[in-house]
Each structure stands twice: as structure tokens, then as C-alpha cells.
């Protein structure tokens, strides 16, 4: 395995340099390189799982799964032979892992008797059938978000989780990201570093991406596509853009970030105003751009009720605006948080108490003082002062989905509680569906508990 080679090379270099120079030589890279997952857990104690869905997201999850110790992939499933074979052969070639491959997930469940978990990374409209059937077969399930392209589908998943008593973790992976948890638990809850949160802003902007195709030689036959609910190969490859199969960009990209609004504010919004449209990709059903404003009823640090608004936009025609982030703004400071650490920044309001104590305690790192910032560019400081810029000291050296998957497997072992069980995810997903409704209705929609209680 590549990771094993890296591990060996690191050990060799460290030993060789130390021996040669008589010094404790070590490179910074060696310290920060992700650790390989040695297979030290006896086979009898490993959690055996299957991967359902071998597409792009399935491969991303698999990359993280292979780094986790104590679990074992035994079967994969995908209706597309090309994707299925690629994963099966890749596991054999790169990882020396033999897995059984299936086209039909029910056949997989019938034949693989000693599975304990399933990882569902199929298109959204298959999430509920896949997850619910696996749960009813006694498996614990990790299912990618969105839970479903319909509210009924998502609701059925919560019901199946409760009825079977099995675990159903939804792939809002930021909920297990140590950096996000650090910000929530310490900076927002403990320190109330940003004072009263007055607004939030999040976005995910992506450049124009051409539709996916498939060569005729590897395309599926129409009857096979029809068997699994697809009209044709084009819609199979581009399912995210069609309402029968997916939830559109608000669901694909916004789901992660709107979930963060709800998680950090710790309440559900009371209304949503939204606009969007199919303005660029004429052959798609789902809108290619959307802007939404959610209203939240919050309580200030001095226990006063107030309203804060959270704006979200997704653009699939431009990567402008700094990529993807969630920005929480308060009267004492703000944080622009992203899965990408290089985008993450914190700002202290000019009139806020000094953060020197928090630097000293390693909660934040000073990145740029106002003096240095002002030297960079001359602005009209009558409008707003240049703020001190800080960085988040916290990071982690794992694949981006790995902590959330680890939480899932730790929960199976009884060592942790799920960070995003289906009933919790459903609350966020309901208000994302509500934004799509608001776009269609072209008006502000009220959000009530009836909308988000499963």
C-alpha cells in the first residue's frame, strides 16, 4: 500500500539521518504525514462492512475508510460494472484486499451473512431504499447526505432507524471535524469569543463543469438502467441535476453548510426567503444558482431574544468569492470557517476586548495586526476599521471524512454517540428542502416544528 511505503520510508529516513549525524534529525513533513492504519485488530474484532455505491463519493469515502483501523471491507455494490470493477480491482491491486462485487444490493445482503455495517454512497433517490433495507437486515448504516431527494424518503429513514434500533449516521462530516467542533465547543460556547452572533453567511461557488459522459463501450444497457430507475445513461451520470434522482446544488453543496447554521446557532430557522433558477445549464432541471436567507430567533449572551439572519448562496458557474466557507459574524468578532484550513480566518472587532489571553492559551493565533493590514492597502477607514486577523490553531491530519466515519464505527462499538444521527440530520434537511420550495413559490416561507420533526 502507498501508505505503508510512506510509513517505511519515513522510518528509514529518520533512522538513517539520526545515525549519520548523531542528531535527532526529523523533518516537519514526517511529523505531519497521515499515519497509515496498521491492521493490528484481530479479524474476529474487526467490523465488516460493505460499500454501496462506487461512484465519486463512494471512492472518497473508501479512501478514508481504508485508513481506519479495525474495520474490513468485504463487499461492494454498484449497478455500473465499470465503477464496480474499478473499485474491486483497485482494492486488489493497491491494497491486496479481495472483495465480492454485486450489481444488486439485495443480492449482496442475501449472500454476505456476517456484515455489521453498510456505507451508502449511491445517488440520493436510492439512499432511503438502500439504508432502510440495510437497517432492516440488522446492519448499522452510514449514509451520505442528502438523506433523500424527498422529505418522505428522509422521514422513512428516521423511522427505520428508530424501529430497528440500529445506527444511522448521515454524512454531514463537518459535525465530526475537530476544527468545527473546536470552534463550536470552545470559541462559541465556552468563550463566547464573537459576542452576540448577528449574522451568518455561507457559500459554495464552483466553476462551470461540463456534464459527465460515458463511452458507449462502458455504458449500461437501457433495460439495466430502467431496472434501477434511470431514464438513460446521461441522467445516470448527471443525476444530481434532475429532480427524480437528486436535490440539486442546494442539496449537494448547501446541505453541508446550512446544517452548520443550525448546528452552530443551536436552533432551527423560523423562515426562509430564496431565489434561484435554471439560468445557465438549460438541459438541467435543478437550478444552477440559488440564494437563500434564513431567519433565526436567538438569545444573546445577556439572555435577550433577538433575530439573526443567515444568507446562503451556491453558484455552479463561477468559483468567485473565495470558494466554500461558513462565516459567523458577531458584535465582538467573527469567523470565516471552512473545511479548507487556508480559507479559515478569525477577526476581532476593533472595540472588542483584547484576545491576547486567548492567543497565550492557544485558542487563536494572531495572523496580522491592524497596522500590518493597513500597510497592505489604503482604504477609507471612516467606513470600517481594519481588523486584527487571526488563524485557528487547530487542525487534524486525516482524510476529511475520516473523523465522521470513525465516529460511526466508534458508536457501533459503544465507545461514542453518533455525531449526526438521522433524526438530527433530518431537521437540517427539512429546511434545505424548504428553501427549494421557497424558490419555486418565489416567496418567504414560514418554518414550523412540524416541518422538521420526523
Amino acid at each position, binding site marked *: 500500500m502507498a501508505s505503508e511505503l510512506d510509513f517505511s520510508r519515513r522510518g528509514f529516513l529518520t533512522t538513517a539521518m539520526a545515525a549519520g549525524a548523531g542528531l535527532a*534529525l526529523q*523533518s*516537519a513533513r514526517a*511529523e*505531519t504525514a497521515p499515519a497509515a492504519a496498521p491492521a493490528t485488530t484481530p479479524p474476529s474484532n474487526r467490523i465488516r462492512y460493505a460499500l454501496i455505491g462506487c461512484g465519486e463519493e463512494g471512492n472518497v469515502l473508501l479512501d478514508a475508510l481504508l485508513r481506519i483501523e479495525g474495520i474490513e471491507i468485504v463487499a461492494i455494490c454498484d449497478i455500473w460494472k465499470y465503477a464496480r470493477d474499478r473499485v474491486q480491482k483497485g482494492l486488489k491491486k493497491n491494497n491486496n484486499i479481495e472483495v465480492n462485487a454485486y450489481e444488486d444490493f439485495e443480492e449482496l445482503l442475501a449472500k454476505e451473512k456476517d456484515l455489521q455495517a453498510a456505507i451508502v454512497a449511491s445517488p440520493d433517490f436510492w439512499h432511503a431504499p438502500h439504508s432502510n433495507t440495510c437497517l432492516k437486515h440488522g446492519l448499522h448504516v452510514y449514509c451520505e447526505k442528502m438523506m433523500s431527494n424527498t422529505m418522505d424518503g428522509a422521514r422513512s429513514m428516521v423511522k427505520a432507524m428508530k424501529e430497528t434500533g440500529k445506527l444511522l449516521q448521515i454524512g454531514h462530516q463537518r459535525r465530526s471535524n475537530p476544527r468545527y467542533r473546536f470552534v463550536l465547543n470552545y470559541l462559541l460556547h465556552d468563550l463566547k469569543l464573537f459576542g452576540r452572533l448577528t449574522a451568518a453567511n455561507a457559500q459554495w461557488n464552483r466553476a462551470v463543469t461540463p456534464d459527465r459522459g460515458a463511452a458507449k463501450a462502458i455504458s449500461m444497457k437501457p433495460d439495466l438502467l430502467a431496472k434501477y430507475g434511470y431514464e438513460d445513461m446521461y441522467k445516470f451520470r448527471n443525476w444530481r441535476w434532475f429532480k427524480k434522482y437528486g436535490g440539486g446544488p442546494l442539496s449537494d453543496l448547501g446541505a453541508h453548510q446550512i446544517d452548520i447554521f443550525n448546528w452552530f446557532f443551536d436552533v432551527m430557522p423560523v423562515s426562509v426567503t430564496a431565489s434561484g433558477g435554471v439560468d445557465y445549464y438549460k438541459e438541467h432541471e435543478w437550478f444552477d444558482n440559488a440564494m437563500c436567507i434564513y431567519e433565526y430567533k436567538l438569545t444573546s449572551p445577556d439572555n435577550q431574544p433577538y433575530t439573526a439572519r443567515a444568507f446562503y448562496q451556491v453558484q455552479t458557474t463561477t468559483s468567485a468569492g473565495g470558494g466554500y466557507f461558513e462565516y459567523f459574524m458577531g458584535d465582538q468578532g467573527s469567523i470565516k470557517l471552512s473545511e479548507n484550513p487556508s480559507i479559515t480566518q478569525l477577526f476581532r472587532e476593533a472595540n472588542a476586548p483584547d484576545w491576547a489571553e486567548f492567543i497565550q492559551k492557544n485558542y487563536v493565533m494572531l495572523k496580522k495586526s491592524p497596522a500590518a493590514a493597513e500597510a497592505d492597502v489604503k482604504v477609507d477607514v471612516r467606513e470600517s476599521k481594519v481588523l486584527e486577523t487571526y488563524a485557528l*490553531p487547530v487542525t487534524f491530519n486525516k482524510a476529511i471524512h475520516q473523523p465522521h466515519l470513525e465516529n460511526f464505527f466508534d458508536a457501533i462499538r459503544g465507545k461514542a454517540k453518533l455525531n449526526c444521527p438521522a433524526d438530527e440530520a433530518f431537521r437540517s434537511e427539512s429546511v434545505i428542502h424548504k428553501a427549494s420550495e421557497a424558490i419555486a413559490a418565489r416567496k418567504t416561507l414560514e418554518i414550523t416544528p412540524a416541518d422538521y420533526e420526523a
Partner: protein
Amino acid sequence: MSEQNETAATPKNWDATLAFWLLRGWLGLRAVMTGLEKYAAMGKVMKPWVDPKTGQVDAGGAMVEATQKVYGLGNYAAIPQSMQDKFAAEPLLPAFMLKIFYAVLGPALIILGLMLWLGIGTRVSLFLQGLLYIGLTAGLIMIKADDGVAWLAIHVVLIAYALTLAKYNQFAVLKKW
């Protein structure tokens, strides 16, 4: 004069010997450590974040990047980049000479310092160290780093004094040179 003749001609003077050992120790240390530091850099290492309130490691797995001094051949820098830039702007310091000087400086300091400590070619070691410091002094004069010039002058004085006491040296691997 042969080694035996020199030893025979130099009367035992333990005061001078002790004085030389002090200089030998200090100048050797100065050279070796200065040379080693040229292979040092501040690298980033990952450590668990510790909650200052509880003193406990964060349960969520938060890690912090801490800067830590690390040594490695790849970190080698003869002198700071800012100083290299100043030297590069000096017309009396040709680029090829600077390149050679930078390549030699670190290893030379370590080797010469070790030679002095072990007593291998003590006089040669001291003299070459003196030449290195003179070379550095020339550059510092040009960029008007007068405090550095004075600082190196002290080193050269110590080396010159050590050379005058070298005949009282004892316990050397190779007394010749």
C-alpha cells in the same frame, strides 16, 4: 622543529595550558554550534490541543500545529537570506565567491571546531577559523554591520591569543600542526 623537539623545548606551564584549554573549549564550541545551527529550521509538528480550563486533551481529536526546532541537511542556510540579499548587492563580492563561501561555511565551522576539540591540527584549525571570521568581517564591513564587525574582531583576538598559547596544549590526538 619536530614534535618531540617542540615538546622538549616548551617548559611545562599549567597555567598557560589551562588558559589554552578554556580557549580551545570555547572556540571549538562556538564553531561547532554555529555550524550546526546553520542546519536548523523551525518546523511544524502536530500535538493534541489541551483545554486550558481542564488540562485535558480535547476529546474531539483537535490537534494544534506547534513550531519546533528541527535539524536536517535540507535546512542548511549559511547565513540568513536577508543578509545574503545584501551581500548579493555588493559589487566587490562576486556571486561565484559568495556561492563557494556559503557552501563551505557551515561544514567548515563544524569540522574546524571538532578538530580543535579533539586536538587534530590545532594551529591549522585555529588559523582557518580566523580566516573564516575575517572573510565574514569583510562582508559585514561592506554592508556596514559595525556591531557584527566588532563581534567578529573579538573572535579573531581570541583565536590569535589561542595560537600564542598553542604550544602549551596537552591531550591532543595529533599534536603536529
